[in-house]
């Protein structure tokens, strides 16, 4: 191989890399642009909010002040947080043992599939009876109602992911534990669960996001004190007109914590998903 061809090869490779970087940068710009616009909307004076071509203006902190200190948004965030965490905990507690059972006792791919099929149930069909039942129980307008409703889609997804994670763990692990005198349940609880922890985290994050984002159930099941964040964000759209400035603040407040968390766990998330959840 002579020097010039190698040079040509190198520069070609560099060119490809530049092209890749350009495309990725473009994608990043498409993702970031709405965020930038939202941030600007949150500090724009009211008469400029929907002026398309205004980038320089005297910024105002009024929206931030109003939303953070004088609205229910902080309470809505706490509500959303309580709902999502409770949903995920219950989903893990019920889904984890079942997933282990499906994985270890080879209940067959039909079971797995029906777990996933449960996720497909349209919320519209569940909401009607759930609404009537929760209503009879006096739970309408409580966070408990939303948690129950969110379980309908979080439990199947979490369980289904966990089956994949358990599949990845070699059987020898618990066989060894059982030789050491553990019962199978102890082996599951004390040996397998700690090993599958990254998978649990990945499934939990997924469940959390699904629950955190839902508006459909929360819109119908909450009110007043129990309103969750998506419902509150929709609430900035009133007959006064959509209050873009305040809504922008609420969106940013809602997104930033999750983005920070996601930033730290993503690598983990990708790796643990790659570990098994993305297979049948």
């Amino acid at each position, binding site marked *: 191989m002579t020097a010039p061809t190698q040079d040509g090869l190198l520069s070609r490779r560099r060119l490809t*890399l530049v092209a*890749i970087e350009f*495309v*990725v940068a473009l*994608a*990043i710009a498409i*993702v970031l642009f*709405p965020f930038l*616009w*939202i941030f600007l909307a949150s500090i724009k004076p009211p008469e400029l909010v*929907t002026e*398309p*071509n205004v980038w320089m203006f005297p910024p105002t902190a009024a929206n931030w002040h109003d939303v953070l200190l004088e609205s229910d948004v902080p309470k809505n965030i706490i509500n959303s947080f309580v709902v999502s965490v409770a949903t995920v905990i219950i989903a893990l507690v*019920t*889904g984890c*043992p*079942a997933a282990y*059972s499906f994985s270890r*006792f080879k209940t067959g791919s039909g079971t797995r*599939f029906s777990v*996933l099929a449960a996720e*497909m*149930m*349209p*919320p*519209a*069909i*569940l*909401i*009607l*009876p759930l609404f*009537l039942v929760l209503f009879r129980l006096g739970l309408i307008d409580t966070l408990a109602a939303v948690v*129950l*409703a969110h*379980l309908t889609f979080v*439990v199947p*997804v979490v369980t289904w992911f966990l089956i994949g994670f358990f599949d990845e763990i070699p059987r020898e692990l618990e066989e060894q534990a059982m030789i050491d005198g553990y019962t199978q*349940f102890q082996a599951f609880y004390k040996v397998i669960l700690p090993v599958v922890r990254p998978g649990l985290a990945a499934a939990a994050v997924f469940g959390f*996001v699904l629950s*955190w*984002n839902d508006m*459909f159930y929360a819109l119908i099941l909450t009110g007043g004190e129990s309103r969750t964040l*998506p419902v509150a*964000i*929709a609430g900035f759209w009133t007959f006064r007109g*959509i209050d*873009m400035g305040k809504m922008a603040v*609420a969106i940013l407040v*809602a*997104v930033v914590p*999750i983005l920070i968390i*996601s*930033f730290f766990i993503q*690598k983990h*998330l*990708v790796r643990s*998903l*790659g570990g098994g959840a*993305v297979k*049948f």
Partner: protein
Amino acid sequence: MHLRFRLILPLAAAMTVIMAYPLVFSAWISFHDYRLTRLQDVRFRGVENYAFILSDAPFGRALVNTMTFVAGAVSIELVLGLGLALLLQRLVRFQNFARAVLLAPMFITPIAVGLMFRFLLNSELGVIPYYLATIGVEIAWFDERLALFSLMLIDAWQWTPFMLLMFLAGLEALPKDPFEAARVDGASAWITFWNLTLPLLRPVILVALIIRALDAFKVFEYVWAITRGGPGDATETILFHIYKTGFRFFRLGEAAAMAYVLIGILMFLVIVLYTAMRRR
């Protein structure tokens, strides 16, 4: 009882309460003239509700719209997600940063995304049409021809990250040896992708497709925030239609029947996909 079943017990109990019971209840409702403003006078209607909705043009339109939306949005997301995953994998610098940013949209609550794009894409007041107009492109994003497509693009903005996440995980988990062999044989990037990456990724692609498609059938927030199903019936989607019938017009009987028709269609789709997958 065998451990296998004891482990499934919590899940089975939870699913019975939150899913089986509501499903049976709404099946019962679907055969009655069940109105929330007339609960003292619920009448048995037999299959009349089903007969009506199957001949009802708006319901048919909503079904067609939803399927078009799902097919379009999920295809866009699949292609973009796979492309970006492959590019990100080859990125040398800023890989973590790029991934963190590109995954961000899926963490925003969809109602916020909807309201945001309602103004970003607004023909008079929005930034995007404004700058497109400066280069001579005039697009009415929410007119009767484009509205459904615009909603697909918004869906793609928010959910391509999910596909990206799944594919990054899938790529990470691929065996290294075949690729090394291909490199040694001097196979071109395209040949490697077509004959190696794609077949190996197939299971992941199918899983990602199914999860996204089932989820896209539930599209509600964008419609609610932007078009309300219009212009005319152009963006009336199935969940929005059921929500209106059940919770705005209080005709629960018809709404439940619609939901069951939807379940039937989803069942059919899932079974087709499932058999397709087993044949691999």
